[in-house]
């Protein structure tokens, strides 16, 4: 019966090698969570920064959850994509972060990574674009053995999430 309001925005991203970036995002929750209102997933616009290297999206996130348990606390998973001069999109990084569990405004920085692929693929990525992508997107946030995956670090996605919690104290959860 506890409620969690996640209100915030995906501010933008820094540190990516490409400049025209956009972000696909989604929120994954456990079975105990119930989305009361809001959209679970979305996509930002493409931002091409003119000044500085931070791509600003300021993409709003407004979700209202009801939960009957703490398990499966919502986590945000992100995919940063870049769009090249031909309007083609390629993956720049995967990332995920938990929605903070304390109320208030939080500045989050979500580092990202992307699969590296074989040298051939790396070469192809440099010259013709595209790139290796995960076949199963849930790897981003699931606890699978990822040690076999060779990845390269991407940039960081900056998030600003405000949290409103309600009735958690009723169930003995302090926050």
């Amino acid at each position, binding site marked *: *019966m506890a409620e969690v309001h996640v209100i915030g925005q995906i501010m933008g991203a820094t540190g990516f090698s490409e400049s025209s970036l956009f972000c*696909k*995002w*989604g929120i*994954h929750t*456990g*079975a*105990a969570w*119930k*989305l*009361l*209102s*809001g959209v679970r*997933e*979305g*996509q930002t616009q493409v931002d091409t920064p003119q000044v500085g290297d931070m791509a600003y999206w300021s993409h709003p996130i407004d979700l*209202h959850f*009801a*939960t*009957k*348990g*703490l*398990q*499966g606390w919502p986590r945000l*998973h992100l995919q940063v994509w870049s769009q*090249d001069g*031909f*309007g*083609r*999109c*390629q*993956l720049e990084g995967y990332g995920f972060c938990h929605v903070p569990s304390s109320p208030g405004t939080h500045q989050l920085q979500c580092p990202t990574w992307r*699969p*590296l*692929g*074989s*040298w051939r*693929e790396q070469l*192809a990525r440099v010259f*013709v*674009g*595209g*790139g*290796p*992508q*995960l*076949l*199963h*997107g*849930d*790897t981003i946030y*699931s606890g*699978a*053995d*990822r040690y*076999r*995956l*060779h990845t390269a670090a991407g940039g960081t996605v900056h998030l600003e999430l405000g949290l409103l919690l309600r009735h958690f104290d*009723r*169930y003995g959860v302090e926050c």
Partner: protein
Amino acid sequence: MNPKEEKVKIIAEEFTENEEDAAVGRRKKKVQRQQRKKQPPTAGPEEMVSENPHLGPQQEPGQEEPKTHLLSTTARRGPRSLPPIPSASRTGFAEFSMRERMREKLQAARSKAESALLQEIPTPRPRRLRSPSERESETEFGTEPGKEVRRTQQEDDSQNYSKVKFHDSARKIKSKPQVPPGFPSPEEAYNFFTFNFDPEPEEERSEEEKAGAKTRGGADQEAVSPGQQDEEELLDGREAEDLLLGLEHMADDFVAIRPAEYESVHRWLQKEKEMLFVPSRLTVPTYKKLPENVQPRFLEDEGLYIGARPEVARTTGNIMENRLLVQEPERGWFGDDGRILALPSPIKPFPSRPPVLPPGQSTAAELETLYKKAVKYVHRSQHMIGSGDPSGNFQVDIDISGLIFTHHPCFSREHVLAAKLAQLYDQYLARHQRNKAKFLTDKLHALRNAVQTGLNPEKPQQSLETTQKTIKEYKAEIWQTRRLRDAEQEKDRTLLKTIIKVWKEMKSLREFQRFTNTPLKLVLRKEKVDQKADEEAFEAEIQAEISELLEEHREEYEQKMEEYRAAHQQWKAWKRAQRARKKKKKHAAEEPPDEETEEAPPEEDPGKPVPPEPTDRAVLEQQVRERAAQSRRRPGEPTLVPELSLAGSVTPNDQCPRVEVLRREDVRRRSVYLKVLFNNKEVSRTVSRQLGADFRVHFGQIFNLQIFNWPESLTLQVYETVGHSSATLLAEVFLPIPETTVVTGRAPIEEVEFSSNQHVTLDHEGVGSGVPFSFEADGSNQLILMTSGKVSHSVAWAIGENGIPLIPPLSQQNIGFRSALKRADAISSIGTSGLADMKKLAKWATESKLDPNDPNNAPLMQLISVATSGESYVPDFFRLEQLQQEFNFVSDEELNRSKRFRLLQLRNQEVPEFRNYKQIPVYDREIMEKVFQDYEKRLRDRNVIETKDHIDTHRATVAKYLQQVRESVINRFLIAKHHFLLTDLVVEEEVPNISSEGSGILGLSLFKLAEQKRPLRPRRKGRKKVTAQSLSDGDVKLLVNIIRAYDIPVRTPTPSKFQQPSRTSRTFVEKHAASPSTHSPTHSADYPLGQVLVRPFVEVSFQRTICHTTTAEGPNPSWNEELELPFRAPNGDYSTASLQSVKDDVFINIFDEVLYDVLEDDRERGRGIHTRIERHWLGCVKIPFSTIYFQSRIDGTFKIDIPPVLLGYSKERSMMIERGFDSVRSLSEGSYITLFITMEPQLVPGESVREKELVARYVSLIPFLPDTVSFAGICDLWSTSDQFLDLLAGDEEEHAVLLCNYFLSLGKKAWLVMGSAIPEGATAYVLTWEQNHYLIWNPCSGHFYGQFDTFCPLKSVGCLIGPDNVWFNIQQYDSPLRINFDVTKPKLWKSFFSRSLPYPGLSSVQPEELIYQCTDKAAAAELQDRIEKILKEKIMDWRPRHLTRWNRYCTSTLRHFLPLLERSQGEDVEDDHRAELLKQLGDYRFSGFPLHMAYSEVKPLIEAVYSTGVHNIDVPNVEFALAVYIHPYPKNVLSVWIYVASLIRSR
């Protein structure tokens, strides 16, 4: 003094004692130290002062010190309770090892020295005696720690220096001449005599001091750095080495040189032989390794699983075995098979540790990456993140290699036979390959042998019983096998016979017709057999069979005899009993009869059993032989082997009769192609191939189908084309969807048979299909063959670039769990996720005899054991979060019970009731239960049909259905609504462009600056379009510009005079005739000139807001007024979807304002004007809001909907002719109004094209037809006429299609016109061709217009649709006035089906015929009464402040009149009606009119009545009349007439 410390001391002393017996070198050091003691140190004065007092006691411990170091560390911890310092203990250890080394060296030196008989060792006694004093000094030291710290600091300074000195001294020692033996020690002696006071001993002393401190556990110990100490130790060691060197020098003299000892190799070898055991490399015979009299046992041969043994070289193994045999003769090392016991090789063929892979070769399924090309962004897959969408495409490869007809209409008789022959031959080959008869014969032999051996028991140990039993079983088996074999043999033989028969038939046919059609040729090869052997074998077989049969019969006989005997016995007993009973009966004759009844009823007569007959051998033999002759080859008869070849030659065409030539030509004209249907949609088709003379078609095409979902069906359609005509569908072939294991390259070519049920009769040699024909001349023995054939194909899943089969997951839900399941699920771990049937799998596993011990099969075995042990165990669920339940705050029910959450969710889902719900309360208790009432009621009532509102049940059903469909469509579009285009989000002003002609700001605006200002000729300014999102109530206005009207009916003069009825309408032919002069205008001469004929004004009502213009005068008024009406979106929701569903209409009503002088007293006339204004409704124009919304503006002249009867008004015409407008005006009939309607601000209408794709799909799922309003802008759905009629709702298209169909069925030339009209916008009209001109029909209103009618609402024509083609208007103009409708002219009309794309003979989606049901008249009458009642109630409601009186008389009059109107379609009745009304209601002033509508619901009727404004009359003595008439048409189509009138009694 601590007891512990003391103990340590004692140990230390013992140490020294032992050591010092031999340690010569050390003694020298001791001496050194002793001497040092005597010498005063030469260091700084300070040191002298501080150290001197301690010198005495310090010397002694110095001697012991080297050995106590290690132990002292432990001692130190005791009394002072200082923390142990690791560095100190380390040094201790280092010291210790150093000492050890030294000790060893000393030992060596000593041995040498001893051998040389060195002098006696001096006793260590004196030192020992001194030790008590040393202890005393310790206590002293303990009292003054501060002093010591200071001293050690000074020592640090002096140490560097002392080290150097020490080295020097050591060198000096070395260089000294060796002291001869016999003396105490060279060093000691040297020291004794030549010691001088160097600074070096000071260092030594300081070290001693420190060591002493350590043993005592002094506080200064921390000050001593470990490095320092190490160094000192090192120095110590070095010192010792120096000493040893000195010793060596001395030992040289005692060494005697001897020759090296040598042992000869032989002796050595011999010795070795005695000592060593060399196991042989030869293989050990097995018997040695096993206990005696035990045969080796090979478990593997017995079928047990033995793992692979570890690899050992043969020789190594042999050596080991030999060794074990000798060394451990117990033989526990050897297994049953005589090999060394060994566990299965633990070495796995693959590394268990994940190899360090080169990047990109990661193999874990869930970590797989896929290189994706950078792709253009597709909107469809917008939200793909994490939602488990099936990624990537999947591919099915369909390889169609060819087609063979087993029957075809063009088959000649010979072909039929050939096909039969080929089929039989195939059968023969198949049977031959299996050779079941041979197999069964062999089995029979084997069984007989077994019986033979079983009968001659050689093994006495087996019990007789079991033998008997097995023999019995064998015999049963023999019998069974024999029967089977006989059947098989007979089949073989008949097959052969049939083949030969067919071949003979074929030969005779070829001879008869004198030409050959097929290259088939049957050759019978005879295989000679050895007659004698064959005969013998045959005979033996027969004999064996006879004997077996005899035996069987005998057994049977015996059994029967047994039975017979038993039966006989029984019978005899019964007989006896019967006899006895008879006697008894006689006795009992006198007894009461009731006793008789008690008696058991007499047993039935079992009948006398017949003894069985013994079998006769001769008869049996006869039978057997007969059967053999029938089913088996006669002995000595050669074996016949048929061989079918295509070696024959086909007669060339010129030698064939005409019919045959015709047939062959026909075959050549035919071609075949296949369509590939995936999920019932055509995806591709093969090339069209000509049919070969052998009726085979080779395609050899592979189709790669890229798919997204699991295929539902794969179908091939066989099409045949003859010449250039259209293709006909021969048959459908359903291909099985391949198993997930079938991938390209592995799929075998399979043949699937098909057959068609078409009936074809041909006029040549072809036998046709589905028609009887016969081979006989007399036509007997008729055959009916259907077209049939086989398609050879293979279907397989394609393999992706990385070797992964491109198979979609079995079910879409599974995909998320797949990776996780893999660990838990045995099936998926063996890689066959497609296996669904556990039982089958288990069956397969048992059949294929999998080794259950093999660990490779372990998962499978586990699975099978699970599957077979009980169905219930197989988990059919998957729990993601195991402990969820335990950690839950609340239960699900409680969560679902929360009203607040429910409300929030419903609002989020945009459920209509809650879509714009604002401010949901924070607490559950604040939410009223009734909030949900409506919603729940709606959910409940979804299937309950409410008849209250609709009255008519059929319409209620339809309305409900429509409502449901509307809901489901809206729900679907809610999703689509969240997809935005760029234009939805970004308002982008067009960038000024120089080159563009119209909007070029830079180009034209420059000229504009120079242009003259013309304020009287304002230019149109483009308005900004507003996306309907940031709007709220009051922002949007509807602007209605009423410009002018034409031909408004005028008041007729006082009704006292009856005038010549003026024909307001003309006959049908007149109306559309081009010449306008046919009608004769009537002139009402009674009108005084200048009198106002009519004072019309316009009232616009929209959403119950009413605005009206000023009153103009005359029948052709001009208002030129702009009316502004506010627009309110439903629920304040200005989103596109919401606006699209606005159902409101704009009513434009034209009224006549009538002024009545109500002054009753003439005297007051001068003082004031007292008039009453009455308004009389003249007509209306109704424009739906959706049209305005989509058209963004409506501009044009509309026909005013004027009731057919308008009492008190008539059309006035004379003026027009006089004014000369007639050429244009008089073409029309009725009244018109010119309007301009628009919205302010302009709203961007929803894009309707975008959803077409979605809708097309949706429509294909649910066949259904909405009216425009419910789907306006979203899509346009067309329904077939029968659906349209069933639903009784539809938009222009449906009306137009139905109308056009009716016209066509009437034999008229009719087309569907797609174009735009006013006020509907894009619409469909119907065009018909009458004698010499075209007529345009408005299907919704039923009005029609000539092509050149100016007031035709159709404004542009886009395309024409005829029954067989579609034409697009490519003329310069699109106005129907200016275009030519002659579709045969290709320059004017571009046809869709042309020579390049011929009409493919599409079938119609419309039903063959429409079925009409009669409408229930009683129901219609009932409906009529109800509507009347409702309307009356409504009118009374609308007049809340006045009394509403109903004039019954008038009502009944009107009611009688309404059917007349229906009959005459509202024409030609006005005058009669008026006359009649006047007659009846002479003393009333009467104003009223009939309304005519198609019936759908009650609400529009109410609206229509309301909009007439009849109720607005508030004259006190007004009376009303209202009559309703419903005329039922078939199919529940109802025509509603409402006559509303107000009556005012005239004085």
